[in-house]
């Protein structure tokens, strides 16, 4: 009880002391202010960037994996890219033997001239897909129907278009049931999907016309032997590593790769990319933390300096307080509380500055930082750091004050 009272008393005393030396207190805590302000702004920026990137990943699908053939560096002169392209049996084997993979669709694409009556559009991308594509890419039809197994097995001449294609080809607003010419073959439009804009990070560019056909149909009309790439979806984002290992095992088996030989394919899992990005973000946060600890160290030395000045300025006062019955522990607490209060006020001002910088970041044009914000843990950390700087650097002057001999102190000029 007495301790709590003494503590509150010293806090009031410390605030009075700081108020009496406003300008000095302000300059002293400048190190802390700048440190806390800059680091919270950096963390806010990182948080905004992370938010942006993760939203992008989410759009791509956190459970989605991308598989493609590739020629490793060491095999450049032995094989060409055609030999490493994925094949239908490989995709089927993955679907059958990888329990962590819930769905898979190969993709086959080529560009054609599309005609709708008199209107012809050259170089439109036509993608062959399996019915599971809708689920994997999260692109449900908004009109008509999705592809089904019968379309695939019977290689039907059916297609699905996106709303951009409707506009470009001047199709009916509800084109389901209409026909278009792909190359010189007549296709029935069975559905419409929304355009999904991917960021440049995932190869998405300008919004373009898209036409989808069953995979078997598109391979038939092009008589191609190889599919281009494949999308798989795992049953749970946590299974990313398992799914990748299983796909890798199946493909290596199918391709007869010897141990020691490099993979002739790549598997990209969103979750792994997220983890990697999180790792990078954590690294950047750590670097920012390192910078701030330097500025806090400098700030702390400033605090120690001013506290030492304060102790020697107030030597007589300390002597008097001791003479009228202040115990050494109380004097210690008084100066420690003053240092901590000084630092905490500095931290508070720093946070205000950090928040202003964050608002600036949010409104900066052409940057993906609209969601920049200081996370609560950073606020807590900023205060904890400033307070501990106060304790660490206030300790020496406070001990000095507490140890003063009252007789000597009262004689001090």
């Amino acid at each position, binding site marked *: 009880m*007495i301790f709590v*009272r003494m503590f509150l*008393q010293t806090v009031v005393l410390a605030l009075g002391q700081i108020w*009496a030396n406003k300008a000095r207190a302000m300059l002293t805590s400048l190190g802390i202010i700048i440190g806390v302000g800059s680091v919270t702004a950096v963390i806010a920026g990182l948080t905004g960037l992370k938010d942006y990137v993760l939203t992008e990943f989410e759009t791509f699908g956190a459970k989605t994996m991308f598989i493609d053939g590739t020629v490793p560096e060491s095999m450049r002169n032995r094989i060409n890219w055609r030999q490493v392209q994925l094949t239908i049996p490989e995709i089927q084997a993955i679907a059958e033997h990888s329990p962590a993979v819930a769905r898979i669709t190969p993709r086959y694409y080529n560009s054609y001239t599309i005609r709708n009556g008199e209107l012809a559009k050259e170089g439109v991308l036509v993608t062959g897909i399996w019915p599971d594509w809708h689920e994997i890419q999260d692109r449900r039809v908004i009109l008509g129907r999705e592809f089904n197994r019968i379309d695939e097995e019977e290689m039907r001449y059916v297609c699905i278009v996106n709303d951009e294609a409707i506009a470009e080809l001047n199709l009916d607003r509800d084109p389901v049931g209409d026909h278009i010419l792909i190359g010189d073959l007549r296709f029935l439009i069975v559905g419409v999907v929304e355009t999904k804009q991917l960021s440049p990070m995932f190869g998405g560019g300008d919004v373009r016309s898209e036409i989808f056909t069953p995979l078997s149909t598109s391979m038939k009309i092009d008589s191609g032997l190889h599919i281009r790439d494949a999308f798989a979806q795992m049953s749970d984002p946590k299974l990313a590593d398992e799914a990748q290992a299983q796909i890798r095992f199946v493909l290596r088996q199918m391709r007869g790769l010897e141990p020691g030989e490099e993979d002739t394919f790549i598997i990209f899992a969103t979750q792994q990319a997220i983890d990697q990005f999180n790792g990078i973000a954590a690294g950047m946060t750590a670097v920012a933390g390192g910078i701030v600890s330097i500025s806090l160290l400098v700030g702390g030395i400033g605090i120690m300096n001013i506290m030492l000045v304060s102790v020697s300025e107030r030597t*007589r*006062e300390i*002597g*008097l*307080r*001791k*003479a*009228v*019955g*202040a*115990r*050494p*522990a*109380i004097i210690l607490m008084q100066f420690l509380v003053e240092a901590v209060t000084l630092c905490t006020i500095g931290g508070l001002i720093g946070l205000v500055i950090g928040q202003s910088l964050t608002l600036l970041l949010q409104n900066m044009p052409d940057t993906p930082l609209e969601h920049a914000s200081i996370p609560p843990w950073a606020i807590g950390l900023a205060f904890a750091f400033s307070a501990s700087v106060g304790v660490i650097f206030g300790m020496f002057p406070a001990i000095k004050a507490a140890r003063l001999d*009252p*007789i000597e102190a*009262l004689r001090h000029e």
Partner: protein
Amino acid sequence: MIVKREHSTDMSAAIDIRGLRKVYRMGVERVHALRGVDLTINRNEFVAIMGPSGSGKSTLMNVLGCLDRPTAGTYRLNGKPVQKMGASELAGVRNIEIGFVFQTFELLPRADALRNVMLPLLYSKHGWFGARRSAKRALERVGLADRMNHKPNQLSGGQRQRVAVARALVTNPSILLADEPTGNLDSTTSEEIIALFHNLHSEGQTIVVVTHEEDIAGHAERIVRLHDGRVKSDLPTVRDPIHRAWIERTAEKMQDLSEVVTRKPEGVTP
């Protein structure tokens, strides 16, 4: 009415000192500030401690005020042995038992009279409750009821010293210790402070004053003279030979002075 003090260990005495020694180490040299002091001060006494500089009166004052610990000997304050206490315990004793009045007042410049007087209560376990009321009462006792919200720089020297006395009294200490309380004051204000001490003494306050001025010491009941770290004499004021000599000298001087004053109109002095 003469009390033999040398060998009585009176438990009811406010201050009881036996064989007190204090040795300072100045580099390799040892300075014997006190060389075995015996002193008993009873409750309600008004004692003056006198002596030339270097006689050890400041050291004795610091020990009496529990600001310093003796090298040897015992010091019982209201029956409690304080010579072995640590810094923290001594602070508690200073807070409760002792009221200090310093030559240079030692008021906090930014605090008003009331806050200055409240200071010791901030460090007291129980006095804090009603500190404001106690501080007002103490200021009333020293006649500064109308100056409570004045800062030290708005007060005269005598008023400042009275604030300091109020601060010393606010915890109801058993001993009021004053170190040259009039050293920084002019004669009129000195009289004011001495009158105040007289009042307090008549109300039952134990007072110990360290001074080198015979006229101040004249107001005490008893004069303890120190010399070279030892008690040279310890007598009631009226029987103290040095003091009596001083009174006679002063009386003669006053007479001479009055003669000079009466002869002045004739213009004898060149």
